[in-house]
Every structure is written in C-alpha cells, then in structure tokens.
C-alpha cells in the first residue's frame, strides 16, 4: 500500500513538451516558486544516487538561485510526521500511514530552506488544502505559481489544478519535477498544458538556449560530444562515419528530429554522411 520503489528515467527534452493552450508570460513581480514535497521520505523511494533525483535537485537549485536573483519568493511544502487518522483522512486508505520517522521529515540537504523561504505544512495532495497558502499569495499580490518537486502526477499536478481554480496561474517546470515513471510524468504535463496551466522548461525560464539540433552550429555542438574530435579540427564536409559516429547514435538523432516533426532515416543519412549535407537535408524536410 506504500509508495513503490521508484526508478530513474530521462527528464523530458524541450521538443517533447506538450503544446500549451495558454500564452501566459512569467512575471517575477507576480510569481512565487513552490518546491513540492522534496523531503527525505519521498525522495528515499528513488534509492541512493538516483540520476533522476540528482538532475532534478540540480535544476531546482538553479531555479531557486534565479528566483532569489529576481525577487521571487520561495515556498516549500513538507508533510508532517505521524498524522492522526483524522488529519490524514483518506490518504491512509490509498497510501498507508505515511511519514513516521522524524529523520525522514526534513527537506533534502541539497535543497534545505533558508531563512528567506517559507515552509508550508502539507496535508493533502494540493498545497492549498487546509492551509492559508492562497491568502499568503494574495497578501503579496502574487498570482503566478512555479511548481517543481515530487511527485509530478500526484501533488504537483493537483496543486496546479487547485491553483487554476483559485485564479492563480500555475507554471509546471517539466524538467524540475520527478515522478513514478516517465509515462506518469508526461501524463501530468499533458493534462496541465491542456487543462489548467502552462508547461515550461528550465531553459525557457532561465533564458538559456536549448540546442537547435537542426542548425549547423547546434548539430555540430551535439555531434562533437559524441565523437573524438576537437572543435577546431572538425570539418563539416568530412564523413561523420570516419569521425566515429555510429549507427545507434545516428538513430538517436533521428528520434530527436522526429520529436520536432522532421522525418529522416538511417539509410538516407548514411549515404550523405557529412554534417553539411545533413543540415541541408533537414532544411529541405522542414520546408516539406
């Protein structure tokens, strides 16, 4: 009945994100960051050294730094230990007794709250339930909520739905969330993008450019990470097969292009195996 042991999976790339229905712009003067349930207890189900959690934590750290820099208040949620039957309600039927060990209650060390941050007590899936979170936002005249943390399709998504119903614009940061599985992660993103909020990525918020794998420069930078060649020695008219690019790496590129709606295949790429020729082919396909 407890939470299952959880595995890692790759966080979604920008090209995988669902299309948003709304065109909200994040405004630092209106926004608040909510770091959701990143307590030892919930993180523990991923096991030690879990790459998904390590990446999520790094991303949340970067986002938190950005929020400090732009005057965006930072909130946390944390569930209390040893909740009574009445306090925990139906959650007990679904998940068992929950958090019991005081050592498991704090936020993980890498994201430990500072004096500037506010930690809300979490009682139900939504951070707004049985708590004055909405009022705190109203008092600060803030009506945008950036949500990160765990678990994507449970508390994170439900908080987004609840925010929407309170006329607070929820922004889900797709690559600063972890979930039970990639399928459930994507389900949460799809639901929010289509029904109650906006799905954004770290690069979109931080203004860092994600690599354009169809441009000469973007593709070159990506390919240089896959082959043994220094940038100044690379010639875009030389065969990538001679540089050691292998068929499985080519297939991975094909699937990345596919996410951007560009169809290619291994055989046609192999017959013109230079970076320059590939970019030309990609340009043609974009026009199709």
């Amino acid at each position, binding site marked *: 009945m407890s939470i299952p042991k959880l*595995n*890692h*999976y*790759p966080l979604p790339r920008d090209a995988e994100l669902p299309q948003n229905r709304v065109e909200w712009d994040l405004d630092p003067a209106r926004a608040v960051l909510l770091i959701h349930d990143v307590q030892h207890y919930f993180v523990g189900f991923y*096991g030690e*050294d879990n*790459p*998904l959690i390590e990446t999520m934590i790094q991303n949340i750290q970067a986002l938190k730094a950005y929020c400090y820099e732009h005057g965006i208040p930072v909130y946390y949620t944390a569930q209390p230990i040893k909740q009574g039957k009445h306090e925990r309600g139906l959650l007990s039927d679904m998940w068992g007794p929950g958090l019991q060990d005081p050592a498991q209650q704090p936020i993980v060390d890498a994201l430990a709250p500072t004096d500037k941050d506010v930690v809300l007590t979490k009682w139900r899936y939504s951070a707004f339930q049985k708590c004055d979170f909405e009022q705190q936002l109203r008092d600060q005249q803030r009506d945008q909520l950036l949500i990160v943390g765990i678990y994507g399709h449970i508390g994170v998504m439900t908080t987004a739905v609840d925010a929407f119903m309170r006329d607070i614009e929820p922004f889900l940061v797709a690559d600063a969330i972890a979930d039970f*599985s*990639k*399928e459930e992660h994507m389900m949460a993103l799809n639901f929010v993008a289509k029904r109650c909020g906006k799905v954004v990525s770290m690069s979109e918020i931080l203004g860092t450019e994600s690599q354009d794998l169809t441009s000469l420069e973007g593709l070159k930078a990506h390919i240089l990470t896959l082959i*043994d060649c220094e940038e100044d020695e690379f010639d875009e008219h030389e*065969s990538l*097969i*001679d540089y*050691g690019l*292998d*068929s*499985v*790496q*080519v*297939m*991975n590129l*094909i*699937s990345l292009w*596919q*996410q951007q709606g560009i169809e290619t*295949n*291994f*055989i*046609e790429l*192999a*017959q013109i*195996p230079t970076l320059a020729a590939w970019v030309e082919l990609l340009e043609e396909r974009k026009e199709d």
Partner: protein
Amino acid sequence: MHTPLPLTDSQHAMWLLDTISGRGELFNVAECLEFKGKISASWLQQSLQHVWQASDTLACRFIRSDDYTPQLLANDTVPDIISQELASDPEDVLTFAQNFAKPHLATPFDLSKDALIKLFLLRAPEQDYLLIVAHHLLLDGYGFGLFSQSLNRCYNALSKGKPLPKLRFTQQQQLLDLHNSEPFLAKQKQAKETLNQWLDEVPEVNSYSASKADVAEPNKRLTATFEQSIWHTIQSAAQVTSTTSSEILLAAIAASLVAQHQQYHVTLGLVMMNRQAVPELSCPCVQSNVLPLPLALTPNTDLSTAATLINSQIKALKKVQSYRVESLKRDRQKQGKSLSIIGPTVNLLPFANAPKYGSVETISHILSAGTTDDIMLQIHLLADKPATVDFDCNVARYDDTDTQNIQARIFSAAKIWASQPKLMLSEVAEILRQKYL
C-alpha cells in the same frame, strides 16, 4: 555480352558458405512489408525495374569459371513481382507472413542461374503485403534497407507523376577498385594483426550452450520487448554513462554470461555493418561481418565502467571490421589455436524505417535474417520505443526452456543494472545466478 567480374571478400565468403554447406536455403533472408492500405502493383513493378537496372550488384547471378572461381555476371532480367489475391486480411500478420515465407525460405536459390530475390505481392481486401525472400549473398541488413528505400523513392515519384529518380548506386567494379586500393589493403593487414592479437589475449570463449551440434533445421525464434518503464530507465542509464542504450544491453548480455560461467572475460560476436566509405554506403550488396568483441570485465566493474569499455571496444572494432571473420578463423586454424572465437552473436539494428508509399503507411516485419549455428540476438532499436529482441537459436543446441531462461536472464540483468548502475558486476551476476541458474 557482359564480362564476369570477381567477387568482393564478403560476397566470396557468402558464396563459399553456401557452396561448402550444400544447404543454400540456410542463407535465405525474408522480410514482409505490411501496407496499411492498398497500393499500385504496376507502380511497384516499375519501381523494382528501375532499382534493379540501376545496380549490377542486384541484377546479377553468381557463376563459376572453369577453375571454379566464383564470378558475378550481370543478369538484366528483372524479377516479376508475383501477385496473389487473399480472400481476407490476416488477423496476425507476422504469423501469416512467416507461414507464407516458410516454403520459400526452405527452397535454395540456384546461384548460377537465378536472380537472388523473390517478391510476392499479397493482396487482401483491406491491405497489401510485400513479401521479399532473398539470398544473403545478394543483400545484408543495410543492403536490404538501401534496396527498400530506393524502391520507395521510385514508387513515390510515380505516385506524384514525377520522373523516376536517378539512383546513384556504387557498381561492382567501383567496389572492387576500392577494396583493392592500397590504403584499404593496408588497413585490412593491420586489422588482421590486431584481431589475432586480441584473440591471443582472450582466455576462453563461452556461449550459453557448450554444445557444438550443427544446424539440422531452421532456427527457432523467441521475440521479447522491454517494458516501457524499464526502457526509460535503460535510456536514463545510457545518459548517465554517456553511452547509448545499445551499450547498456550489451553490458546486460555480458552480465548474463558472467552469471553462467563465472568468467569475467567475455567475448561476444558483434555484427558489423562494415561500410565506412561513401561508395560502400551506396551499394545494395552484402558487406556485413561478424567479429569478436572481447570485454575484459572484472568483478568490480560497475555499469558505467562496463558501458564505457564496451563503447571503446566497439570503436576499436570499427577500425578492424574489414577483415573477414572467415579469414580470422583460418588464421587461428593455421596457428593451431581454438576456432571458437565468438560467444553469442549480437546484431544491433537501428535501421527501423516505416516509409509511406504514396499516402499508405507501412510496417516492416523482419521474418528471417539467416541461420546461425549457435544463438543470435537481433536487437531492434526503434527510436524512442522500447527495444525488441529476437532470440534466434539453433534448436540442436537450445530447447525452448533454455531460450526463455536466456531471455529472462538478459532482460533481468538490464533492469537490475540500469536501475542500480553502481552495483558491481559480481553482485549483478550473483542475483542472476540465484534467480535463474
């Protein structure tokens, strides 16, 4: 009058295997292209004619000279696509296609007389199916892909009322010129030395079976696909180790062998595309090779170390892939060394492609990739979708229970190690041993 041409090393090796075995049917391969609708038989035949006539490595037969040297002789006759009506659409396309292909796979081609390909267009009320049976001497996996892609390009040109495309295939003489060039021969000589040196350092080569029984009947296949969530973890593990999912799968295969033999030096057989130069990449022919991939693993190896080692060994193998496995075995024999140079053979197939014929979508089913005397793992890597693995086994060495156990062990190894990349190989092997051996 056409002049016969010599064969490339790969063609020669396949010709010899066919001739010496006296069982040419073992080298037949088959694929079924399922059209998700109806297509034009006439456009398809015109496309085949155009592709066929553009390549002398396709439009040929393999004759013997007076001194028994095999040669390639142009054969301009274009095979007819044999059309057959089906009363209803098959419920299970794969089983239907396998049953249809069975008698054709069991019939050897006459290398000196026949075109080495047969095509059947099976026309059901809702869908059409193109079944292709060919001899491995004509096409390998890449060659098959090149042939199919060209057929598709021509068909789509016809469907749009455009002129047929100019197909720039490399011809046999151009391929021979490349393979007889000094740099190519020097590379091959170096490859011979390197491969022999590698094998000298290999202690013992194990597979899943110790039996040496020959092939008596067609291989039996077990097909399994990874669960989506496990595949995501494998992809994530590949990211963490800066490799690809194929290295993670090879590490899992190695772990499954370590569990069985408790020998940490594992040697897999890896099917190499063996096409480096652009002319080779534009030639519909046979060129692939199977070479040893020796992996000096240790009990303390974690997934990252294993995947990185596999990655660097594959890179090293690419540099020596033009030296034929048959020549390597001959070298070992001459030196009085073991002929057992590869363990289970792995074929990584990232060529997945589902082209549209006009507006009709397609699904490709690989029915047979030839016969192996031991075990061959055909790993279909399908973009972001979970990999499917065909376990093709020599039934004289593996019964159904053996194959199921091997499949379960490898899939379990992939799940365990990808989930916990820091586990040491000895720990993964011990878990597998307790569960499966």
